């Protein structure tokens, strides 16, 4: 695809010194470690693979049912099942060695120490380009309240992680807060190199015939197209609150949604639940973005970031 000047538009973006070939990433937990989708998607085309949340030790996750469909979206209560950082490094990171895409490792934990253990183990690994810290995990010490719902604890965890992290740190914000701007500022003050949002919105589904909860966990995180307008609004607010780059996600189902997110202020975007509806969605979003730039005679995608004030 070429524009008036005969050149292909430049899709690359830079976050904290890391250059991505395009702004399209995968939403953590919706793409495994890339391995599961490698037969469906050319991973080399992606801006980055963001891996499933990994903790210091294996986590078994929640009882089933863990997923439910809702109108235009889905609920999940996977409970962050993962094999722990050691298996992750040996198997999943090793698999990603062969691909020409950036790797962002999503990290979860139940105490600050848990997070630091993972971050320290990843510190020497060249294959890890960035870290994304999921602060929606239950903080066991503070009574299962997520780290990310209180500005002080978000500031504290960000600061502690930054002290030990070798790679740039993205703090992934939860939308289940009163003021997303306040949380974005707390992450920035703690030293975050970037923020990503939104994680899932807490929801619930009841089976009216059986008169019971559909998810074993009762509540689950809502994602998919249903949450997109909420995500755009929050990305816009966060991008106006901080100076660090914002990675936007939440219900991206097409290149239009991705462009919208960037116009609202995102430097990059991630596609989550829609991978389940169409495993090739990320490639389609990239193609559509390129086409959009050509049609509008725009040379670089960077010039649309936050263009709608």
């Amino acid at each position, binding site marked *: 695809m070429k524009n008036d000047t005969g050149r292909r538009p430049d899709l690359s973006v830079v976050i904290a010194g890391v250059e991505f070939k395009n702004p399209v990433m995968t939403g953590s937990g919706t793409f495994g470690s890339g391995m599961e989708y490698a037969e469906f998607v050319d991973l080399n085309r992606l801006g980055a693979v963001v891996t499933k949340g990994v903790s210091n030790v294996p986590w078994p996750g929640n009882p089933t049912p*863990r997923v439910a469909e809702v109108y235009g979206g889905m609920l999940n209560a996977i409970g962050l099942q993962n094999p722990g950082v050691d298996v992750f490094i040996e198997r999943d990171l090793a698999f990603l060695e062969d691909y020409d895409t950036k790797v962002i490792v999503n990290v979860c934990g139940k105490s600050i120490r848990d997070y630091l253990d993972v971050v320290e183990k990843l510190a020497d690994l060249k294959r890890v380009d960035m870290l994304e810290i999921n602060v929606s995990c239950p903080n066991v010490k503070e009574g299962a309240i997520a780290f990310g719902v209180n500005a002080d604890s978000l500031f504290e965890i960000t600061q502690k992680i930054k002290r030990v992290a070798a790679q740039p740190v993205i703090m992934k914000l939860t939308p289940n807060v009163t003021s997303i701007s306040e949380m974005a500022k707390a992450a920035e003050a703690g030293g975050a190199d970037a923020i990503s949002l939104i994680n899932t919105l807490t929801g619930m589904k009841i089976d009216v015939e059986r008169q019971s909860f559909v998810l074993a966990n009762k509540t689950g995180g809502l994602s998919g197209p249903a949450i997109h307008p909420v995500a755009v609004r929050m990305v816009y607010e966060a991008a106006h609150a901080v100076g660090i780059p914002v990675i936007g996600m939440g219900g991206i189902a097409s290149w239009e949604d991705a462009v919208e997110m960037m116009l609202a202020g995102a430097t990059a975007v991630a596609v989550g639940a829609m991978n389940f509806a169409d495993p090739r969605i990320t490639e389609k979003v990239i193609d559509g973005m390129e086409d959009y730039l050509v049609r509008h005679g725009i040379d670089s995608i960077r010039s649309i970031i936050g263009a709608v004030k």
Partner: protein
Amino acid sequence: MADMKTKTGTTVIKNTKIADGVFDMTLRYPEGKAPSEVKPGQFVGVFMNDASKLLPRPISICGWDPEKRDLRLVYRVAGKGTKELSEASSGDAFEVLGILGNGYDIRVLAGKRVLLAGGGIGAPPLLGLANALAGAPVPAQVTAALGYRTADLFLKDEFEKTSRTVIATDDGTYGFHGNVIDAVRNELVREGELPFDVICACGPLPMLRAVKALAKEFSVPAYLSLEERMACGVGACLGCVVKTAGEDPHSHVHNARICTEGPVFKAEDVEI
């Protein structure tokens, strides 16, 4: 990257009601896009045309005709998605993900005395298995024990073409009055023995639990086809797990993915 997998657009060839709320659908793959290998016990994810329904519906393979590229699915209307499917007519299009999961290994079952235990909508994948076993180089001796709610039976005649067939109905309107396990105990156990080399079962969870207990009692190995709510169908979301006796190969936390490690498991490997 020539042989990338993708969603495939298929065309409805046939979609007929074969019992109350149960439909028999044939989907044809376009030329050059047909799956190269299809095993009984595997499944596909069928996407709805109404995009507000995001997730693929997992439906087992009841039959596969490689010449015509025809996939046969038999499904029960259980909610919004299967209702949309049931309203389709020939010529309509559906996108399909798959072939997914691990099915039965015909070589392992060939030549054996096989008991198929099916409950309700668990029967269709077992029909695919019965037909594959009948066509194996060394055919198996297949007995199908099938449980239905009432005399509104489906697929029975097709099972009878290849297999000895025992029918149970919950309300006693046809065959044995009771569930399929009681029918097996009453009609197939001889002199304290269950005269089979292997059991393959598909059906509701209580039935699968009973099959597991039966298999243990008579020391007959059993394979169970499990179901769980799925999102991705390809092993990425970890939505569809079942507790396993040993460490699972993915997360090492005794939670295997039904869509990837399953849906067919050895009975002793899963804690249901």
